């Protein structure tokens, strides 16, 4: 049902792609008629509640569910012991010792983070499920715990997984060019001993949820959920549940935001499936916000140590070396993929030739990490931007000029980066100029000089990349035994009985407007208006097309999704023209598709509506000659495969992403000296994501990514108590998700550098690369320039800035050694 009153003027003659077509999805959302998982209901359904460990690290000596199970209206209970009998540990991607990690859907023998589910209850009502869970008695034996992602790698640290024997999950050396030569050559070496990127999350407004029915008759599991990567979940859940993976039937419909956080819910869905089978009833789970914060995905938390940056006298930065410790939390549920994904943006926007990063992924008693918008790349990009910013401050270069000197230049594209990635297009200096124009940098420099007493003003730039459409061959750099390379997406284009155009995809939109942009692409190919195209978005195992890693993650829909739609629509067009040629007695080359008709070019009278074509193929097939009937079905499935090769795992080298969109942000902050509070006075973002299929939708993604970054930079952080391992931001009262009063007016502009590697010239975008975190850190550094303070944290609440303002800075966070 759509309210899209697409004026006839738009699109006739010109293409729908490139138009800000109003969204097809809006009607149901605006009327409150969306179908989110908690809105769904099944006869005889029970409600699930997970009992969670209050301890961050504790042995589970006993679990007594008898009182709970005896309560009237309780359908079933589930404990770790049962899970260990009924299921096998999940498949692990990590190589070596960590491959032996034993991970189940409930804690088995030991709880390893505060909030880890230790038991589950299925009951008649939501409230009863919780009452019953409280009646479960668990005897714990608390164990020493560790929440420091670096110290956990020390030999004396308490070990989380005895079966692995260490808290180091993965380690690898990324070494390109010759950094030692570069450090020796350099006129200056800038040394930064320690930088820290904190843990935060996009916290989608809809929490995780699933309605699972294990149908005994067909031994199939029907899952209605808001998980973003159903096929990835099947890969884990099939073997774990000892069931054919194709017996897990996924269906996603409307999802209240995902941002990557809804990828690793396969553990909860496994437990719910077991409860459903045990009780012989559908089981519905709707996670509460505090459960989500304590038990679901947090973003990567990364510490950088011993950073060294060789710089020539003229400001040319040769590269950098660093050690990185990434804290993956208590289990590897999508990790250690993050241990390679950051290398999509190894050198950020810059022409560094010599880079060495010793990367270590560690385990701590905290929520398992999962891909949070900008996954693993925004941490690295923040460090790279901080390096460039500190080089400018310490060596007296103008931050704008220094960036322009070291940026990849417009004429360099396609530009091969030292690790084999190929940046496809861009114009970084132009984007930077545009963003500085948007905030009117000269005006703010003037105001900075005349800041009122007790106030400081700072201007910061954040240049960042959105790598899109990853090559799963990157996983072989983590573990050469993993049989995953390439990527892709599938789409089906069909004609309905009366010639209605239907598109279905394997993607899982959570607000990215797939129905609208897919309709625009199909409309252009088939000569109709987007209003005439129905797109069934959302993953539907039994109905939609899909491939191995179908889903929506890692900024790729504009490329994999829309190219799949174009391919399927072209196949359908060819079949329509073949049937049309027969029906009109004309050559296919003389025919065109326009306004829902197949007509002879120049003689619009000789035409047949799509309904006629459908009639011939679907209901009047004997009228068709065999050679046409045998080769047409008007149901066309196309798989778009990006041109990836296998990766060289020895050198950790290869093109592990297809497109690189970029965003250059500029931010003006005011710091209140007496309190350290930061207020954003002006904010701008310029986006370059190749051909813009729906400009308004792209701008919406830029706004959302900007708010995500601003929240992370100033308001949102997860902190664990060092001594008790308790998460201290366990509700939205203490996890301050940025409100409309916290986010400033966002000025936006764009540059359009068509992608050379994506057929439609578009690039995946929307994760935003954390640009605001870079821009705000750099703006704070600029405001504190004369104090000697050094911004080495990505999260800057008032207290940290107050400390920087009042510290004596005898020992500064940066040191320059010059020849």
């Amino acid at each position, binding site marked *: 049902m759509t309210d899209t009153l697409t004026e006839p003027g738009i699109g006739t003659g010109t293409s729908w792609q490139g138009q800000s077509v109003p969204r097809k999805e809006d009607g149901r959302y605006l009327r409150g008629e969306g179908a989110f998982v908690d809105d769904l209901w099944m006869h005889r359904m029970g409600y699930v509640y997970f*009992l*969670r460990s*209050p*301890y961050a690290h504790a042995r589970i000596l006993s679990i007594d569910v008898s009182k709970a199970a005896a309560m009237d209206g309780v359908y079933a209970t589930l404990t770790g012991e049962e899970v260990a009998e009924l299921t096998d540990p999940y498949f692990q991607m990590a190589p070596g010792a960590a491959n032996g990690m034993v991970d189940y859907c409930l804690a088995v023998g030991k709880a390893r983070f*505060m909030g880890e589910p230790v038991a589950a209850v299925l009951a008649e009502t939501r409230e009863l499920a919780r009452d019953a*869970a*409280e009646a479960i008695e668990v005897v714990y034996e608390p164990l020493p715990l560790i929440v420091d992602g670096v110290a956990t790698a020390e030999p004396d640290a308490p070990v989380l997984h005895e079966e692995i024997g260490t808290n180091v999950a993965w380690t690898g050396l990324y070494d390109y060019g010759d950094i030692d030569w570069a450090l020796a050559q350099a006129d200056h070496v800038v040394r930064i001993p320690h930088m820290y990127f904190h843990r935060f999350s996009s916290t989608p407004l809809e929490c995780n949820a699933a309605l699972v029915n294990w149908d005994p008759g067909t031994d199939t599991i029907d899952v209605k959920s808001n998980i973003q990567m159903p096929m990835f979940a099947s890969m884990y859940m099939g073997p774990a549940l000892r069931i054919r993976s194709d017996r897990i039937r996924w269906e996603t419909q409307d999802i209240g935001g995902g941002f990557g956080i809804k990828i690793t819910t396969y553990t909860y869905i496994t437990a719910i499936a077991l409860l459903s089978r045990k009780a012989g009833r559908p089981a519905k789970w709707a996670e509460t916000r*505090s459960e989500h914060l*304590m038990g679901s995905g947090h973003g990567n938390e990364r510490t950088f140590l011993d950073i060294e940056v060789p710089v020539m006298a003229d400001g040319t930065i040769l590269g950098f070396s660093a050690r990185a410790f990434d804290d993956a939390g208590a289990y590897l549920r999508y990790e250690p993929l993050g241990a390679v994904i950051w290398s999509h943006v190894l050198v950020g926007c810059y022409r560094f030739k010599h880079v060495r990063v010793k990367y270590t992924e560690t385990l701590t008693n905290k929520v398992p990490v999962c891909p949070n918008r900008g996954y693993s790349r925004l941490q690295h990009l923040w460090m790279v931007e901080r390096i460039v910013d500190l080089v400018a401050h310490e060596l007296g270069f103008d931050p704008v000029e220094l960036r322009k000197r070291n940026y990849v230049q417009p004429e360099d594209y396609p530009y091969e980066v030292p690790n084999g990635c190929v940046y496809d297009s861009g114009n970084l200096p132009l984007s930077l100029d545009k963003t500085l124009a948007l905030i009117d940098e000269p005006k703010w420099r003037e105001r900075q000089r005349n800041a009122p007493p007790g106030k400081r003003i700072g201007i910061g730039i954040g240049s960042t990349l959105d790598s899109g459409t990853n090559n799963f061959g990157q996983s072989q750099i983590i573990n050469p035994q993993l049989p995953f390379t390439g990527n892709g997406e599938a789409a089906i284009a069909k004609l309905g009985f009366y010639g209605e155009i239907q598109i279905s995809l394997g993607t899982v939109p959570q607000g990215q407007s797939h129905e609208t942009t897919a309709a625009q692409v199909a409309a252009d190919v088939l000569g109709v208006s987007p209003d005439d195209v129905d797109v069934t978005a959302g993953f539907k195992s039994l109905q939609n097309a899909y491939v191995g890693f179908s889903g929506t993650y890692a900024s790729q829909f504009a490329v994999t999704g829309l190219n799949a739609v174009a391919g399927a629509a072209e196949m359908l067009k060819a079949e329509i023209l073949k049937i049309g040629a027969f029906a009109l007695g004309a050559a296919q080359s003389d025919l065109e598709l326009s306004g829902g008709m197949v007509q002879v070019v120049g003689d619009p009278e000789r035409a047949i509506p799509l309904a006629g074509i459908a009639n011939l193929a679907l209901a009047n097939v004997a009228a068709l000659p065999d050679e046409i009937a045998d080769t047409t079905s008007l149901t066309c499935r196309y798989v778009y495969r990006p041109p990836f090769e296998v990766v060289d795992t020895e050198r950790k080298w290869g093109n592990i992403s297809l497109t690189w969109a970029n965003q250059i942000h500029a931010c003006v902050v005011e710091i209140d000296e007496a309190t350290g509070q930061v207020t954003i006075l002006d904010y701008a973002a310029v986006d370059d994501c190749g051909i813009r299929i729906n400009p308004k939708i792209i701008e919406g993604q830029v706004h959302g990514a900007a708010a995500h970054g601003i929240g992370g930079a100033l308001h949102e952080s997860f902190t664990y*108590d060092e*001594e*008790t391992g*308790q*998460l*201290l*931001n*366990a*509700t939205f*009262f*203490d996890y301050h998700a940025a409100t409309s009063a916290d986010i400033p007016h966002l000025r936006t502009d764009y540059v359009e550098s068509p992608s050379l590697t994506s057929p439609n010239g578009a690039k995946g975008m929307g994760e935003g690369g954390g640009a605001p975190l870079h821009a705000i850190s750099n703006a704070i550094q600029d405001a504190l320039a004369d104090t000697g303070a050094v911004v080495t944290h990505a999260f800057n609440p008032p207290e940290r800035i107050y400390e920087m303002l009042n510290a004596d800075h005898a020992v500064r966070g940066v040191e320059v050694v010059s020849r």
Partner: protein
Amino acid sequence: MKLEGSVHSPLAPSELWDALRDPQRLADALPGVRLVDVLDVQSFRAFIEPATGLGVTPFELDVRIDDERAGEHVSISGAGRSGEQLVELEVEIDLSGRADGTAVEWNADVRFFGLLSSIGQRVLPHIAADMIESALQGAAQAEPV
């Protein structure tokens, strides 16, 4: 969280020392105490419902009175549960004689586990300190409360 405080008792140090080592007396002094089950000379289980404006937060508490130095020092350790929330605490109590009785200096380490540790992080230090203080105050009176 590290807490401390002081209380005055009219009893002489040795009398107070005995009073504080008496599980029944200590348990009866707990705020909102409902049931007491003395397990042995050194420990008791108590069901307490401390009241605040927001309602009561029922806790099942197991308390042990540990090492003692006669007339000078008493150590108390406890673990409690309220629904899905847990608490652990150790209280060290030092007695020093005064002309009019005994000065009681106490310091405690109290740790909460579960959602309460987050939602209560601004008020639990005050509430826990008040509860410990009022329990010691109660137990330290001439006549048991």
